[in-house]
C-alpha cells in the first residue's frame, strides 16, 4: 500500500551522459523498433523552433528533474509528508505538450503533477513550499504534492482521485466551446486511470457533443505496482476511443520532438474540427509509484536501467541538440548547474517559509466566507473552529 515503504535505497537518478548508446537489452513493452524511423526534428512544429526555444525545452526538462530530485531528498529528510509521486523519466511529455499550447488551451492532470506545474511556468519556490506544507506554497499548504493549481497559467490541477479529472477536463473543453474560444483542454491521465468508468462517460460526451478535449494517456506501463498487462484488457489503451468515434494514436514520449509533433497535430485538429482525441504516449517513470513504494516487487532494476540508458528524454534531447549544433557541452552543464541551484534555493525558501497558522484552516472553504463583505447568506457556516479562531 501507499505510505508503507520508502524507497530511499534507490540511488539518485543521474542524467545519463551523451555517450550512452548502449543497445540490445530487450525493452519489454514500449518497443518501437518495428516502426519506420521518422525524424521528428523535421516536422513543421519543430523545424520552426528557434535555438533559444530548443534550449528552453531542454532547460525545462532538466529543471523538473532537478526539482524532483531535490524534493525527494527533502522527503527523505522528513520535510515533506504524505505522498510524493515523482515524474522523473516522463519529463518530455509535460514539457513537449505544454510547449505546443496556444493562449486559449488549458490543461488538467492527475496527482503526478510537478512536471506539468513547472512546465506551465509555476516557479520552483511556490511548488517546493507547497510540498513542505508552507504558507508560501502554491495552494498555501492546503493541497500538497497532488494538488497544485495555477489557473492564471491555464493549469487546473493536480487531482488526487484516479480518473476524477477526466470529466473536469471535459467541462473545460465545454466552457471553451460555449464561450466561443478557439482552445482545447489537454487532460492528462495515467494508463491505470483508463479503467475508471467516468473516463468512458466522458469519452461518450466528448464525441457526442464535439468537445475539444484531448485525453493524453501517459502510459508509463504501470498503475502503481500493476503492469498494464495485468490491469487492462485490449491493447492499445487509446484504441478504446474508437468505440466513440474518437481519433486516437499511440506515440512515443521519450523524444520531445515526437511529443511536440503529436500534440501540435492534435491541438490543430481540435481547434479546427472541435473534436476530442485520445493520445496514448508511451513513457516510463524511474522512481517508485510514490516515494513510499517498494519498487522492486513488480519490476526489475534492469528494466529501469534500460530506460535510463536508452530512452531517457533528457539524454536523448541533449544528444539531439548537440548533433544539431545548437548547444555546447558547457551550456548543458550550465543549464544543469542552474537547475540544481534553483532547486536548492527553492528548498531553502521552503524551509525558511512559515507554516500556515491553524486559523488558516478556515480560509478557502467557501468563496463567500473568504469575501464576507460580499456575502449574501445568513446563518452559521462552520460548526467547529480551531482554538485560535474562538
Amino acid at each position: 500500500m501507499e505510505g508503507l515503504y520508502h524507497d530511499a535505497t534507490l540511488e539518485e537518478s543521474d542524467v545519463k551522459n551523451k555517450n550512452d548508446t548502449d543497445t540490445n537489452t530487450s525493452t519489454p513493452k514500449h518497443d518501437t523498433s518495428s516502426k519506420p524511423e521518422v525524424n521528428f526534428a523535421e516536422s513543421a512544429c519543430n523545424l520552426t523552433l528557434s535555438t533559444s526555444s530548443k534550449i528552453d525545452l531542454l532547460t525545462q526538462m532538466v529543471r523538473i528533474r532537478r526539482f524532483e530530485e531535490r524534493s525527494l531528498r527533502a522527503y527523505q529528510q522528513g520535510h515533506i509528508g504524505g505522498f510524493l509521486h515523482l515524474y522523473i523519466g516522463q519529463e518530455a511529455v509535460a514539457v513537449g505538450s505544454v510547449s505546443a499550447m496556444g493562449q486559449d488551451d488549458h490543461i488538467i492532470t492527475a496527482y503526478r503533477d510537478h512536471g506539468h506545474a513547472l512546465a506551465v511556468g509555476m516557479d520552483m519556490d511556490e511548488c517546493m513550499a507547497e510540498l513542505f506544507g508552507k504558507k508560501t506554497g502554491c495552494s498555501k499548504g492546503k493541497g500538497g504534492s497532488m494538488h497544485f493549481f495555477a489557473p492564471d497559467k491555464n493549469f487546473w490541477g493536480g487531482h488526487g482521485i484516479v480518473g476524477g479529472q477526466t470529466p473536469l477536463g471535459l467541462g473545460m473543453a465545454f466552457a471553451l466551446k460555449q464561450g466561443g474560444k478557439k482552445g482545447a483542454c489537454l487532460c492528462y491521465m495515467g494508463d491505470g486511470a483508463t479503467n475508471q468508468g467516468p473516463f468512458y462517460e466522458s469519452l461518450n460526451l466528448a464525441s457526442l457533443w464535439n468537445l475539444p478535449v484531448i485525453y493524453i494517456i501517459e502510459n508509463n506501463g504501470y498503475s502503481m505496482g500493476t503492469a498494464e498487462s495485468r490491469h487492462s484488457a485490449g491493447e492499445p489503451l487509446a484504441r478504446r476511443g474508437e468505440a466513440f468515434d474518437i481519433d486516437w494514436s499511440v506515440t512515443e514520449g521519450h523524444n520531445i520532438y515526437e511529443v511536440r509533433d503529436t500534440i501540435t497535430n492534435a491541438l490543430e485538429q481540435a481547434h479546427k474540427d472541435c473534436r476530442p482525441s485520445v493520445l496514448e504516449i508511451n513513457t516510463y517513470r524511474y522512481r517508485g509509484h510514490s516515494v513510499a513504494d517498494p519498487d522492486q516487487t513488480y519490476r526489475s532494476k534492469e528494466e529501469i536501467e534500460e530506460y535510463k540508458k536508452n530512452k531517457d528524454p533528457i539524454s536523448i534531447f541533449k544528444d539531439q541538440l548537440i548533433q544539431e549544433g545548437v548547444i555546447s557541452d558547457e551550456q548543458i552543464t550550465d543549464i544543469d548547474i542552474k537547475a540544481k541551484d534553483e532547486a536548492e534555493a527553492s528548498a531553502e525558501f521552503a524551509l525558511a517559509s512559515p507554516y500556515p497558522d491553524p486559523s488558516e484552516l478556515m480560509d478557502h472553504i467557501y468563496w463567500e466566507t473568504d469575501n464576507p463583505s460580499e456575502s449574501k447568506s445568513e446563518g452559521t457556516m462552520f460548526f467547529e473552529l480551531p482554538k485560535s479562531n474562538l
Partner: protein
Amino acid sequence: MAIITYREALNQALSEEIERDENVILLGEEVAQFKGSYKVSEGMLEKYGPKKIIDTPISEAAFSGLAVGAAMMGMRPVVEFMFWSFCYVAFDQIFNNAASVRYMSGGLINVPIVFRGPANGGTNVGATHSHTPENFIANTPGLKVICPSTPADAKGMLKSAIRDNDPVCVMENTILYNMKDDVPEDNEFLIPLGKANVLREGADISIIAHGKAVHTSLEAASVLEEKHNINAEVIDLRSIRPLDVETILQSVKKTNRVLLVEENKPFCGVGAQISYLIQDRAFDFLDAPIKRVSAVDAPQAYSKALENAQIPDHNCVIASALTIL
C-alpha cells in the same frame, strides 16, 4: 404575487436567471425535449435553445464533473439530477471536486454550481430512488445545502443558489412539486441561504423541521392547538448549511421544549447536529429532553403499507410532542 406551483416557481427561477446571466445553463437527463422528468423545465428549450437547456445521456459522473469543470472556468451550470439518489454515481465529482477544489487550490478557484433535483421518499419507488442526502452534503465543508419547502422558497432560494459563488445543493421534493402558493413575480425576489422561517409562532414547544416535514409539523401544530390546547412554534430551517442557529436558539429559549422533525434517516441525520447545538448552547433553557422524529431506520420500503409507516406523519409528531409536554 401570483399563485403558482412549486414546479412553476423553480421554472421561473431558472428562466429568470438564464435570462439575467449568460453563464447560466441547465443540464441533465431529459431536461430539454422531454421538458424535465418532472416537467420543471417545461418550455425552456423552446425559449432558450439547446445551448442553454441541455439533454445529457445517463452519465451522472461525466455531466456533473463537466459542470464542475465548466464552473471552475466561470460558467454557472445548474445540474438537474432526476433524483438526488442518482448523485451517488457522481459522488466523487460532487464531494471531491466541487467541494474541495477551492480549498486544495488555496482559494485560487471557486465553483459556482447548483446541483438540484428531488430528494424524498413517500412515492413508493423503493430504496434506490428515495434517498435524502442532505445530511451527507451538510457534513462536507465546501458544499451548501438547502431544502425549500414552499413555492416561494423554491423560487427565492434557487435564485440565490444560482447567484451564489459556491456549490449549492438544492433538495426538492416530488410531492411538493404540485403545491400551490403565492410567489412574488419580482425578478429580484431572493431569499438568502441560511435564513430559517418561523412559520407559526408559539410558546409551548419548538417544532423544527425542513423539507416536506415542515408541512407535517404544521399539521401537527394545528391539531396540538385544537385538541390539546398546546401552542407550538414551527420553524422551517429552509437551509441546512448554512444553518440559522440563532433562530433555533431564540425559539428554544422561548419555548424551552424542542421536537426535531425530518424525513431523513436518524443516524447522523440533520436532527443529530441540531440536537447537539441546542444542548451545547441552550442546555439551561431546556425543560425536557430534546425529542426527534425521523424516518424509520430501514432502507426505504416500496409497499405503501410499509412506506407510510416509515415516513413520519402528523400523528407521529403529535405523539412525540406530547411526551415532552
